[in-house]
């Protein structure tokens, strides 16, 4: 059974500090672990997931919740 995902609320955090903070948290997780991130609509949802993918992580899911988004990320095996 896989571990439950860690959560990180980045709503209200400006770009690209939101991506940087997400990456810092992911770096502290074991390979294959999941992180569920709350993001604002607009520039954050457009830019943060690609920035995470560029560093080798996998964006598993993106769900709109209210005015924002929830993004499920899996830490890359070699990231």
């Amino acid at each position, binding site marked *: 059974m896989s571990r439950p995902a860690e959560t990180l609320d980045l709503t*209200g*955090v*400006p*770009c*690209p*500090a939101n*991506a*940087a*903070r997400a*990456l*810092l948290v992911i770096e502290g997780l074991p390979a294959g672990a999941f992180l569920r991130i709350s993001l604002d609509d607009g520039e954050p949802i457009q*830019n943060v997931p690609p*920035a995470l993918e*560029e*560093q080798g992580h996998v964006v598993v899911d993106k769900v709109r919740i209210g005015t924002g988004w929830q993004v499920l990320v899996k830490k890359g095996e070699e990231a």
Partner: protein
Amino acid sequence: MEIYLDNAATTQPATAVLLAMSECSRRCYGNPASWHRLGVEAAKVVERSRQTLAEALGAEPDEIVFTSGGTESNNLAVKGTAWAAGRRGKHIVISAVEHPSVTAAALSLEKLGVRVSLVGVDSEGLVDPAAVARVLTSATILVSVMHANHEIGALEPVQEIGRLCRGRGILFHCDACQSFTKEPLDVAKVPVDLLSVNAHKLHGPKGIGALYVRKGTALAPLFDGGGQEGGRRSGTLNTPAIAGFAAAIEAVDLRAASVMRRLRDRLWDSLRRAVPGIRLNGPRKARLCNNLNVMLPETESKPLLRKLSAAGIYASAGAACSSAKPEPSPVLLAIGLSPQETVRSLRLSLSRWTTQAQVDAAARAIVRLAGGS
């Protein structure tokens, strides 16, 4: 032997700080506002450092605004609060012993119709919270009182003043540039809304500081520009200096304060035993651990400082920012010294690297040059 006793002016950067800055300059030179890989790497340095600073203050990372140093932090706190208050902001209260960057910033607002009250201090340089309470009015928007005085090391009763302000819905700003990491100050415990810190007083780089801004505090920016730092401080972030700031905080040894206090007291004991008539400027007890400020009985400090410098001992007469000005120190005048007495005053400030041998050698040199026995 070089003996550096001017650590209230600035400190020697720690090796870890220089390494962090060099590494960051070489590897993370992207603009932390850029979305490409190098930009995001730089942003990671900034956010990691923000977290380090926030933890050191007991704050949330979003409550930290990086600035160019203490002067900018103080200007942002004072002017930013008044500008954000607009027509409501008609009265600001500061102490008579604030750093010039607080005093001048507040007085500059007078031409915008803001009234500024200066609260005096006692003969030790301490602000009486009751005196602050007496000048507060319904138009008061901000009180600014420093944590530790830059010249005489007086530790002001910021807890009481903050509580007073909080009870009346008035913002409280505290300049903690001298005391940060030397004396405990946790924004979760002290009712402060804005707090200025910088790096170069704690073996960090010059040109970097921060303002703690409690969540929900209205603050107008000083600069127009790209809207960095959540719109509160435009301008490309100085990533290497920010990395150096965090490295300086991480290198702090919490046991150093008691060592500095013991050596400072040893220095004072040596001087008062050998120089009849020497006086301590500032408080005996409520005093920053690394600060000693004395008034010599006959010797003027400027010629003495030149002779000490020639002997490899570096100290100052007062605030570094005021060294170029011929006027007597407003801080020393505020505690009751005459202009003639202010020019016989000497500030000796230690760091965690100051040794007992250095303190003893400095005392011998001062006694010899100041004509003691």
